[in-house]
């Protein structure tokens, strides 16, 4: 083969591998979606639970923390609830804007252990939408959820964690909204 012919082929590999590095980003998301590995629960409103499995119970704990300088305090009223798979549960959260300006908040849920993520169904959640707060406003949110009856037997407790972000500036130019839709 001529030098330039081989050179072109090798350069093609280089360009291909550079593109592959970026292709890893969507591939990673697809892989995590399929396997439910990284604890990202669905942001869609779930259908109502159809049956209850009374033979066992699962502990569901709640934790929240505000990211970086997000001026919000979000707390669940209960530390944890004990539910049967399929049983509907309601948990109240109080949320407060600590700043003296109106802000927009987005909560991002995450479930641990990661593989329990796809078994936690939310019918109502403040994380479905961006939440606007006026200065120092305090709001009560209700989370309605149930744990799937398909939840593997060995999982006896799981944690639903919310990370709270201040997206006031981002909503001003609408970038996060677009990203959320795309994601």
């Amino acid at each position: 083969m001529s030098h330039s012919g081989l050179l072109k082929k090798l350069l093609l590999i280089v360009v291909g591998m550079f593109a592959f590095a970026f292709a890893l980003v969507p591939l990673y998301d697809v892989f995590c979606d399929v396997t439910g590995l990284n604890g990202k629960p669905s942001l869609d409103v779930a259908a109502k639970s159809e049956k209850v499995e009374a033979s066992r119970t699962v502990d569901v704990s709640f934790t929240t923390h505000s990211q970086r300088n997000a001026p919000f305090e979000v707390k669940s009223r209960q530390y944890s609830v004990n539910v049967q798979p399929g049983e509907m549960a309601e948990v109240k959260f109080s949320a407060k804007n600590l700043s003296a300006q109106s802000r927009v908040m987005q909560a991002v849920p995450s479930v641990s252990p990661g593989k329990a993520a796809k078994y936690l169904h939310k019918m109502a959640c403040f994380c479905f939408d961006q939440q606007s707060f006026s200065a120092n406003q305090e709001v009560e949110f209700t989370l309605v959820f149930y744990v799937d009856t398909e939840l593997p037997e060995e999982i006896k407790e799981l944690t639903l964690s919310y990370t709270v972000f201040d997206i006031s500036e981002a909503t001003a130019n609408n970038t996060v909204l677009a990203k959320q839709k795309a994601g």
Partner: protein
Amino acid sequence: MSTVAQTEQNHHEHHAAKGFKRWLYTTNHKDIGSLYLIFSLTMFLIGGAMAMVIRAELFQPGLQLVDPHFFNQMTTVHGLIMVFGAVMPAFTGLANWMVPMMIGAPDMALPRMNNWSFWILPFAFAILLLSLFMEGGGPAFGWTFYAPLSTTYSNDNTALFVFAVHIMGISSIMGAINVIVTIVNLRAPGMTWMKLPLFVWTWLITAFLLIAVMPVLAGAVTMVLTDKYFGTSFFDAAGGGDPVMFQHIFWFFGHPEVYIMILPAFGIISTIIPTFSRKKLFGYASMVYATSSIALLSFIVWAHHMFTTGMPLAGELFFMYATMLISVPTGVKVFNWVATMWRGSISFEVPMLFAIAFIVLFTLGGFSGLMLAITPADFQYHDTYFVVAHFHYVLVTGAIFSIMAAAYYWLPKWTGHMYNEALAKWHFWLSLISVNVLFFPMHFVGLAGMPRRIPDYALQFADFNALISIGGFAFGLSQLLFVAVVYKCIKGGEQAPSKVWDGAEGLEWDIPSPAPYHTFSTPPEVK
């Protein structure tokens, strides 16, 4: 014959310009090989000086000499310099010098690109090193630049780190392409694939690894750049990204990278051991296949660096078994080296001393690697000095020792002079003893729980750390002997014959010492 000599002479005058321009404009593989090797030695000393700063700070518990932020810059830049500035350019330099001579080619296939791939390197490292003197300092997030350390929590000089890594990557990709084209297209008639010297084989495979993974590294640093400066969120959960994904992308590059730094070493050892055992290499074909399997396996083991990130059990088991599988082809290689020495008439010249030390100590590093591969055990070893001990055994007593062995083996061919044997032996023995004083106790402090990359430590580690630092200073000073040996060897010494070692085989020993500026202008016949 005389006309051939005449044209060679004209060529010589035409190409070898004098002074600085000779080196700046050179397209000669031997010149560029020398440039790479000298550059690598310089970087080795600079990176080594940084290691001295680290060991001086860790000589005693508490904060003594440097502030923690500067300490972090030292660990980061030490790693970057040694990986991209010392080990990789040294191997590229050896490839430049030796590959054309070993396959009977007149030069590298793409000589102008060769010049370019070397001359962008000093700029990359100037950018990296000078960023240390900027306000806020240089990169301080470890050579692995994990997000969010390199994105959210790094300073504005991170762009300089990113551009430096881009340039290093482009340089090694060009170097690798050149090696592949040279080996595929310029082999002398009769030099079939299974007659290639093993150094050439291992470099060919390394070159393919390089063009496969250096672009992925370029992608990773580009994502860090855009996350930090242009508002993307590849690794930021706030925008839908994932910091763990950084580690997947980085180690997808990073694990093949560690084989990039060891496969050419395997080639060097496979060249030196037969020479001084005065026997043919045992199991040539199995060496080729073992090297290829190591290269292929290197793509499916990356997540063993990430056992503690919360992978599912199935993933941990897969990466554990895949990692352990690599010890099979590696074991084949070690077995073949030992079998080559078995019943050979061995003599212990300095290259052979380094090669034997390589086999023993690299294998030791391989064993600690196996320990780290055991997922449940890794939870204890992760991010401790045990890891530091492991990768310094495979990289210092592995890669660096093989480079030293290669330098002593081919120095007489390059310079035309024998090196000073007594001084070289001093260099070997001092290095061998001090390197073990330096790295062996790190296993113990690591197992006892001393974390890496921290400028201070708990009091119970004090004695071991003082010992480690003494070993470190001794090893660092010993390398000055190497500089002295090389300098003296270039300046003069006993005239070396064309076949420097009586047991050596290969085309490079058919040409006079020092190797003339142009060799194999007419290809040799290989039988």
